[in-house]
C-alpha cells in the first residue's frame, strides 16, 4: 500500500509551496505540486498608469524584485514601441548579471547546500586534510588550514549552544548524506564566505538601481540614473571604477569556489544524475541586449524539445513571434473560475477556491504551456539552450565542470548528466560563471560608450490613444519571466505575469500532463518517509520561489507546518 507524504511549506524563504507524494517501495510513484497562496497583482494593476507597473510588480516577490521591474518595463516598451538607449541597456545588463550572480550564490550555499552538506559531520573533519583537499581542487586564496579551523570552531560553538539558528532546518545524520567530513567542512566554510560575497554582488545592484531591495532606476524607455563621468551627482567615473573593483573581487569566488564546490558535491552524489529529469522540454529567452531595439543579444535563448539539443529553435528578438504565439496558460487544475486555456493577453483572473482535489483543482498556480506542452525553465534550460546554440563561454564552462566531475568521480560524465537534480545545480553554477564574465563585458561596453560622448539614458514616454499590446521577457535567475500588458489610452486594461516558478511548479495541465516539479519527483528514492530529504533535494534544485508564483499570505490563515507524513 502506497504511503502519502505532504510537505508544506517546502521553501526555506518566502512562499508557500505544498508538495504531496505517494511513496511505494522507497520510491515516489506520484506527485502533486500546489501553490497555497493566491497572487492578485493582475487585479491591482487594472486601471493604473502603465508607468506604475514596474513599481507594483516589484512587490510580487520578496526575493526577485528587480526581475519583475525589468520584465515590466520591457513589456511597456514593447507595447509602445520604445527603443532603449545603449547606456540604459548596458546599465540594465549590469544589474541583471550582478543580480544573477548574487541569486545563484545565495541559492546554492544558503538555500540548498544543507540538503547535501551535513554541518554536524563537518565537526569531525581534520582541518589539515580539508586544506589539502581544497588546495588540490582550486587556487582560492582563502583555502588554508587556519580558515577551516576557525570555521570549525565557530560551528562547534553554534552546535554546542543548542541554537542552530540558520542551520536549524537541516537533516543531520540522514542516511542520504554522503559527503566525507572534510568535504562537509570545506562546503560549510564556503557557506560562510558566500554570505560575504553575495553582498558584494548585490552592491552593484544597489549602486546602479539606486537602492535594493526594490530598485528605483528601471523606467519604461531606459533608466533614470544620469550618466556623466564628471558629475558627483551622476553615475560617474569614480562609481564606475568602484563597480569594476567589486566585479574583479567576485570573479574568483564564482570560478574558484562556487563552480568547484558544485562539481565536488556532484561527484560524491553521482547517483543523483539519474534522478529528477522530469519535463525535458526546455524554454529560455535571449538576454543581455546590445542594441536599442532588442535584436542583438550576448546570450542566446530558445526552445528544446524532449531533451534533444538538435531540436533547438532560437528566440531572437523582443518581437519574436515564436515566443509570443507559443505561451498559453491553463486553469483546468487551478483554483480559478472555468476550465480554459488562454493566451496571457486574453486571460481573466477570477479566483474560486474549492479545496485540494487530487484529480481536480488543487493549486493557485496556473499551468503554462509552450505550444501545448509543459516546459522546464531555469538555469538548466538556459545553459542547455546556450550550449545548443554553440555559445562559446557556456561550452567552455560546461566542459570545465564536467571535466572536474569526471576526474573526481573517476568516470566519464557527459552533458546528458545535466538532465537531473544535481545537473540543475551544476547548470546554475555554470550560468553564474557565464554571467560573471558578462559583468566585465557589459562594464567595458558601458565605459566605451560613455567615452564616445553618448550620455543618453532614456527615451521619452509617449502617451498614445487607443489600445496597444506588449510583452516583455527576461531570463531571470529562476528562468523565463514574461509580463504581458494590454494598454488602453494610457491605462492598464489587462496584465499577466507568467513567472518562472509558474512554469516549474505548475499543476497538471489541460491534458493532465504533470508539471516539471511533479514529473521530476516520480522515481526519486525516499529512504525515510518521516524525513523526505530526497524530495526536498529535487524540489530545491529548481530554486522554488513561490512568493512569486503566488502570494505571501494564506487566505485561510493556516499556520506554517513543516512536514507531516500521512
Amino acid at each position, binding site marked *: 500500500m502506497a504511503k502519502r507524504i505532504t510537505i508544506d511549506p517546502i521553501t*526555506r*524563504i*518566502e512562499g508557500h509551496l505544498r508538495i504531496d507524494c505517494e511513496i511505494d517501495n522507497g520510491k515516489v510513484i506520484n506527485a502533486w505540486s500546489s501553490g497555497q497562496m*493566491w497572487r*492578485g*497583482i493582475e*487585479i*491591482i494593476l487594472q486601471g493604473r498608469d502603465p508607468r506604475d507597473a514596474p513599481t*507594483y510588480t*516589484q*512587490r*510580487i*516577490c*520578496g*526575493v526577485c*524584485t528587480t526581475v519583475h521591474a525589468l520584465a515590466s518595463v520591457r513589456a511597456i516598451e514593447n507595447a509602445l514601441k520604445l527603443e532603449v538607449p545603449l547606456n540604459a541597456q548596458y546599465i540594465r545588463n549590469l544589474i541583471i548579471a550582478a543580480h544573477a550572480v548574487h541569486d545563484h550564490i*545565495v541559492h546554492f550555499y*544558503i538555500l540548498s547546500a544543507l540538503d547535501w552538506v551535513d554541518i554536524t559531520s563537518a565537526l569531525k573533519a581534520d582541518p589539515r586534510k580539508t586544506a589539502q583537499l581544497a588546495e588540490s581542487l582550486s587556487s582560492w586564496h582563502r583555502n588554508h588550514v587556519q580558515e577551516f579551523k576557525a570555521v570549525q570552531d*565557530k560551528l562547534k560553538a*553554534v552546535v554546542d549552544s543548542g*541554537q542552530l*539558528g*540558520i542551520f*536549524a532546518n537541516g537533516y543531520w545524520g540522514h542516511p542520504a548524506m554522503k559527503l566525507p567530513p572534510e568535504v562537509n567542512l570545506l562546503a560549510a566554510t564556503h557557506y*560562510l564566505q558566500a*554570505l*560575504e560575497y*553575495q*553582498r558584494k554582488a*548585490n*552592491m552593484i545592484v544597489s549602486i546602479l538601481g539606486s537602492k*535594493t*531591495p*526594490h530598485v528605483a532606476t528601471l523606467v519604461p524607455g531606459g533608466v533614470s540614473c544620469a550618466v556623466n563621468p564628471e558629475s558627483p551627482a551622476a553615475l560617474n567615473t569614480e562609481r564606475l571604477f568602484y563597480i569594476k573593483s567589486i566585479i574583479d573581487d567576485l570573479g574568483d569566488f564564482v570560478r574558484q569556489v562556487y563552480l568547484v564546490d558544485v562539481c565536488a558535491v556532484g561527484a560524491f552524489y553521482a547517483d543523483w544524475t539519474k534522478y529528477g529529469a522530469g519535463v525535458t522540454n526546455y524554454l529560455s529567452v535571449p538576454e543581455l541586449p546590445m542594441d536599442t531595439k532588442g535584436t542583438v543579444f550576448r546570450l542566446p535563448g530558445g526552445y528544446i524539445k524532449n531533451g534533444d539539443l538538435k531540436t533547438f529553435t532560437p528566440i531572437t528578438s523582443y518581437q519574436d513571434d515564436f515566443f509570443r504565439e507559443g505561451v498559453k496558460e491553463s486553469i483546468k487544475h487551478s483554483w480559478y473560475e472555468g476550465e480554459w486555456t488562454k493566451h496571457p493577453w486574453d486571460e481573466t483572473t477570477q479566483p474560486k477556491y474549492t479545496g485540494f482535489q487530487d484529480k481536480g483543482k488543487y493549486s493557485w498556480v496556473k499551468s503554462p504551456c509552450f505550444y501545448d506542452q509543459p516546459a522546464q525553465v531555469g538555469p538548466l534550460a538556459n545553459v542547455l539552450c546556450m550550449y545548443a546554440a554553440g555559445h562559446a563561454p557556456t561550452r567552455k564552462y560546461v566542459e570545465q565542470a564536467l571535466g572536474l566531475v569526471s576526474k573526481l568521480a573517476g568516470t566519464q560524465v557527459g552533458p546528458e548528466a545535466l538532465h537531473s537534480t544535481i545537473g540543475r545545480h551544476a547548470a546554475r553554477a555554470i550560468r553564474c560563471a557565464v554571467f560573471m564574465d558578462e559583468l566585465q563585458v557589459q562594464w567595458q561596453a558601458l565605459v566605451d560608450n560613455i567615452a564616445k560622448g553618448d550620455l543618453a539614458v532614456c527615451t521619452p514616454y509617449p502617451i498614445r490613444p487607443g489600445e496597444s499590446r506588449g510583452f516583455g521577457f527576461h531570463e531571470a535567475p529562476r528562468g523565463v519571466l514574461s509580463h504581458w500588458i494590454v494598454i488602453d489610452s494610457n491605462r492598464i486594461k489587462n496584465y499577466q505575469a507568467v513567472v518562472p516558478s509558474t512554469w516549474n511548479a505548475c499543476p497538471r495541465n489541460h491534458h493532465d500532463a504533470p508539471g516539471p516539479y511533479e514529473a521530476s519527483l516520480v522515481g526519486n528514492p525516499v529512504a525515510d518517509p518521516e524525513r523526505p530529504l530526497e524530495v526536498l533535494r529535487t524540489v530545491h534544485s529548481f530554486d522554488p520561489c513561490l*512568493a512569486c508564483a503566488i*502570494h*505571501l*499570505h494564506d*487566505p485561510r490563515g493556516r*499556520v*506554517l507546518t513543516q512536514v507531516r507524513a500521512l
Partner: protein
Amino acid sequence: MGRLTLLGLGNILLTDEGVGVWAVREVQRRWRLPPEVEVVDGGTAGLDLLPYVEERDWLLVVDAVEFQREPGFMGWLAGEELLAGGTAQASLHHLGLREVLAAAQLLDRSPQGVLLLGIQPHLLTTGVGLSPCLEARLPEVVQEIVARLGALGYPPLGPAESED
C-alpha cells in the same frame, strides 16, 4: 553614537500586511531624523537586508504580527524572541528576518540590540493601502516608534518641513 536601522517589513500589495512599510515611511515623512538613523523599506526581502542589519547598534523592525488581538494592537518583541525557535507565527516575514539575523550572528556582525514593533493587522486581502481602522491608528504607531527612538538616544531633530 552608533547607527540604527529602522526597518519596515511587509507586502504593500496585501493591505495591512504592509503596515510596517507604511509606518516607517510615515515616520520619515513626519520627522527629521538624526543622521545615524537609516530608514529602510524592506518589503518582503530576505538576505538582501543583511547589509542594513550588520554592525548596527540597533535594529528596529516594524511588521505585521499575529497577536490574536484587536486590529491595531501594538506589542514589542525583543531580538531573542525573534531568533528562538517555535515562533513561526510571530511575524508573517519571520523566516526572512530570522535568517538575516542568524546570518549576521554567524558572521559576528549582529546588531547590538534588536527590537520589533508588531502591529495586529485587520485585513490581509489583495489591495494597496491600509484598512481604514489601521490607517486611523497610524499616527499612534508613528508616535510609538518616535518615542522608542527617543528612549534609545535617537530623538528626531524636529518635525519635517510640511509637504501637505
